[in-house]
């Protein structure tokens, strides 16, 4: 069994085809849609968790790719909503890598995503809830 979260990107030309139905019916893949942004005749995106036997999983992915659907691995990313951040500075003692850091003595807080190891400790430590984990496609 394989269980994996992926991002499916549908070009506008194929967006109206019943891909998920086919995955379930023809390839025995259990597809759990986590997030979808699908509109008629526009490029669409879907975050989906796929669960299947390894051979079915591979065949299903090939089927999607042959029909022009891009299948991208999913990456968790931490985002800093700067306009929600009150610049309190509390997170700088919680973040283990200095991804959230303070310029002293100005005491202004910034976020450096390259240093972030996605430990998620800041998510609930930030009193203003300015940190969020988002799922994004790895390009």
């Amino acid at each position, binding site marked *: 069994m394989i269980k994996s979260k992926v991002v499916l990107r549908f070009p506008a030309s194929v967006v109206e085809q019943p891909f998920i139905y086919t995955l379930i019916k023809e390839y025995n893949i259990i597809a759990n849609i986590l997030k979808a942004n699908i509109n008629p005749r526009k490029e669409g995106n879907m975050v989906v968790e796929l669960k299947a036997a390894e051979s079915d999983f591979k065949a299903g992915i090939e089927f999607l790719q042959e029909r022009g659907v891009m299948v991208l691995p999913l990456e968790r990313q931490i985002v800093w909503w700067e306009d929600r951040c009150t610049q309190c500075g509390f997170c700088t003692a919680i973040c283990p890598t200095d991804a959230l850091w303070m310029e002293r003595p100005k*005491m202004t807080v910034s976020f450096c995503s390259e240093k972030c190891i996605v430990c998620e400790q800041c998510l609930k430590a930030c009193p203003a809830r300015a940190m969020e984990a988002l799922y994004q496609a790895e390009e």
Partner: protein
Amino acid sequence: MSQLRSIKEINEKISKGQAVVATAEEVLSIVAEQGVEEAARRVDVVTTGTFGPMCSSGAFLNLGHTTPRMRMTKVYLNGVNAYAGIAAVDVYLGATEIPETDPANTNFPGDFNYGGAHVIEDLVAGKKVRLEALSYGTNCYPRRKLETYITLDDINEAYLFNPRNCYQNYNVAVNLSERTIYTYMGILKPELGNATYSSAGQLSPLLNDPYYRTIGVGTKIFLGGGIGYVAWQGTQHNPCVQRSANGVPREGAGTLALIGDLKQMKAKYLRGVSFLGYGVSMQVGVGIPIPILDVETMRYATVKDEDIVAQVVDYGEAYPQGSGGSLGEVTYAELKSGKIIVQGREVPTAPLSSYPKALEIAQLLKHWIEKGEFTLAEPVATLPSADSSIKMHKLTEKGGNTND
């Protein structure tokens, strides 16, 4: 002490757009260059600011009358209970109130994602807020149930009334215990893993006027982005603590009760915040102008971070148990450097109160005064000061009947 100017004279200069104003940070270099006496002659007003979590905050709201009328006895705003034990459609919405459905700390540490402070922030941001009210019904107020939406614009009066803001100095929190603890001073890692503090230091209003010589009842202030006033000394106002030679308290001391029109305020200066495992609080922006009436006022207003000390307190044991004292003193300059030494160990520090936002508020207040948009108000009464012999009472448990 010879007076240099009166508040009336300052206001005349303000209305002509001629007042000389400096923030409590800028005034440090002015005094360093020109000396305190010359600086006092040149500068009319020093502006201070602070933007920290202030739990003792809340708002009085008059929701307006429905037809038929209702004497509301239980009121929920976005599910958060507002105190309705006053007149028919008056309520007090406390910043730290959480919905009755919030699991709080049953799943420790609780998230506390939404509470009274967030409702206030939502109202100020112009959002629709769900109102549910219940009543027992009376002859004059027959209605028993109401479900609707309100916005800040369509209710009557709405004013912030904060019983305790602007703490003059505060503890530095550490944790000597072996487990992580979740407090109103943030997450404290075990065995001196970190230290937190909550004061704007040299920018903080009451640290720049340590004996409340200019800040009193009726002082006009910046509150949450609008105009407010000092209403009274705050709860737990404790001016008689030990002070340094410069007059600055060495621990938490004076506090202010503040009032101001919520309809003038801005959500960016009034923020709901969630302390993991502790609860909801409100980050309140306050700016207070200090009129430079004499050289002495200027001397107090030029206090520097290195001249303000705070006590390091163990929140693992000593604070919750109300036992034991300070683990030592550190200055705000040390706290702002990012590390302090406690019991011979280097401990990383982090603030809970935003210095950049405090500075932004002091600068904004300065601009308001320079542009003639904000004049100063003469206090109508002084606050109890170091000579007041105020003592904080402890609550002791007593047995027996109340009528004994």
